[in-house]
């Protein structure tokens, strides 16, 4: 089991909400991590997030954040920031989000020791496969910020040598990549 997780959250079909997954991809293109660090695009998992948080040492979330600031502004939060306010009431399986998963694990005594949120204020989360210009410009700085917080926490992260990006998944959601036929061609 990994010690540290970098989790990109958000929906790539919903415009700026795809920021987290986009940063995960940019990060993997530019950095390599040691075997103790796992970097994943998780989509919009709700409570399905907990398996990745349980007993972890450090979790870095990359996500859009709600704040009264211009679109594209990057904000870094820690665990205390995240858990300061009470969680919301539950209606559906999506309602419990990052905070609720962390608080549940906190009660179980199994929450991550350290949490960092690399957040960016979105412009528009409407159906689209593209990020708005403000968020597209924030992808690289956010990937660098992820590398920085990993290094600060003693996690193994190094810049990638220029020609070694071949094993990074193609961004299937853009441009049109026949992901189905990719899967079949591997047979």
């Amino acid at each position, binding site marked *: 089991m990994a010690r540290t997780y970098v989790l990109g959250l*958000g929906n*790539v*079909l*919903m415009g700026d909400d795809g920021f*987290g997954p986009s940063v995960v991809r940019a990060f993997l293109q530019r950095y390599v991590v040691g075997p103790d660090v796992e970097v*994943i695009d*998780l*989509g*919009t*998992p*709700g*409570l*399905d997030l*907990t*398996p990745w948080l*349980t007993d972890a040492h450090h979790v870095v979330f990359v*996500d859009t*954040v*709600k*704040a009264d600031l211009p679109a594209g502004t990057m*904000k870094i*939060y820690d665990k205390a*920031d*995240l858990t*300061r*306010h*009470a*969680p*919301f*009431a*539950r*209606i*559906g*399986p*999506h*309602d*419990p*989000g990052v*905070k*609720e998963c962390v*608080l*549940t*694990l*906190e*009660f179980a*005594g*199994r929450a991550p020791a350290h949490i960092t*949120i690399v*957040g960016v204020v*979105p412009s528009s989360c409407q*159906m689209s496969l593209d990020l708005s210009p403000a968020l597209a410009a924030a992808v690289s700085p956010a990937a660098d910020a992820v590398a920085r917080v990993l290094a600060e926490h003693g996690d193994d992260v190094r810049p990638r040598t220029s020609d070694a990006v071949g094993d990074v998944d193609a961004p299937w*959601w853009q441009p049109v*990549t*026949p*992901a*189905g*036929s990719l*899967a*079949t061609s591997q*047979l």
Partner: protein
Amino acid sequence: MSTHITVDPITRIEGHLRIDVEVDGGVVKKAWSSGQMFRGIERILEGRDPREAWVFTQRFCGVCTTVHAIASVRAVENALKLEIPKNAQYIRNLIIAAHAMHDHIVHFYQLSALDWVDVTSALKADPAKTAALAASISDWPGNSRQQFEQVKGRLAKFVEGGQLGIFTNGYWGHPAMKLSPEVNLLAVSHYLQALDYQRKVNQVVAILGSKTPNIQNLAVGGVANAINLDNQATLNMQKLYEVKSLLDSVQQFIEQVYFVDVCAIGAMYADWLKHGSGVTNYLSVPDLPLDSKGTQFDFPGGTIFNGDLAKITPITSFEDEYFRKNVSESIAHSWYDGEWQKHPWEEETVPKYTPYDANKKYSWIKSPRIDGKVMQVGPLAQVLVGFAQGHEPTKRWAAKTLETAGKVAGAQLTPAVLHSTLGRHAARMIRCAVISELAQKHWQLLAENIGKGDVAIFNEPVFPKGEQQGFGFHEAPRGTLSHWVVIEDGKIKNYQAVVPSTWNAGPRDAQDQAGPYEASLVGNPIADPERPLEVLRTVHSFDPCIACAIHTVDVEGNEIARVKAL
């Protein structure tokens, strides 16, 4: 004088479920269910390669990922009349089963148990008495006195620290909370243990799907899991045994913990077997196919009308005509242009928002119908459709549930009590127990088939010129899911997903027939209009999944659900 209550949670998710109820004399008289987000996400597929549709559809919803992937490949295969190898069916079935067990366990413990369990009351429990009670109903090794003491201590520390953490904003001390402190402590302990089984069953999906929550192993025509028992990189003996041991472990939890908790908690709220029936027309499609074509299944499908279990209209294959011809969607009260009721292949999605008006348009959700009738979908429909067709494991688990809960409640319980809010919880657990048995069966089928030397996993799809129509259904954890595709010259021309929560959460139709959520709330008691716990109980019993697809963390704000009682 009647009171109007609006439950409109402001979550970090843009778009969610809003419920309005009219209460008179402490009882709900009328209810409205409204989806607050436009969900026309299917349009993103127009013009794309049908082989890649599933990769997109599994991002429709972050919780129901695999189910949209499965329905999508089935729809395209149906359009092409493409059969898939048996191994591919079995591997898909194992993913389907693992995903369902995961959802049901998470729903009961993490999402809905706290509607019935008063966490703060557990502080008054005697751990020794709790252990004695637990030992009298289950052999589960995780029910020791020490464990209960530990959980109680942890809870006390939380409360003393002045912070309830995850339990803030619960309806603690509400007059409708009725469990003894010991049962509350038992439930809180299992709430914590459930986290481990959520993780274990999720690993099954990860091993077979190569990643979760978004699996990578599907293909139109089969799966991409190369099988070679001696190869490290493929599906091999070691991975198969890893899956088996995870399935064993989760099955034990379901049978010794989940089953017992639902029976025990349910028995103590027996009056909730009288509330929440609502719509008693049920729809469930067959699933866990056993052949390459989809004509034989481990779960039967069909429709039931007016709760009459003696009369069932079966749905029997992936080509089923009755299902294909009779599904339609109404937009009479939904924010789309027009008033039509159409078959999914004929639909166009033109949003047209007008202010919320319960007498006109009030929801983004459409109203699906079978032959013009409102249908309830979900585990209760699954169990009743199975029961009515003599499905052995379903009948056995249903009988065991009614007997066990009846013993605790001191009453004779018949299948008729399942038409209720609590019945939906019981049915979800019954379905989960049955599917954990069937997961074992499909693991066996896969291992035996590979053992015979069959390693086929994929049949190549071929797209002819011209137009093809296809539909693919899947009986997902929350009920019947169907994807409808029109393909023209190898490209997607139209795509519609009719999702389980649409069947249940949809608004009234042109005939003013209320949807299942709306109908099930009528007659519910409301003890305190400012804290409408009872509304949440009934709505949660459906396991709603409405606010799909967007994620934003709110670190700076301090928002809670908005409950308005006027």
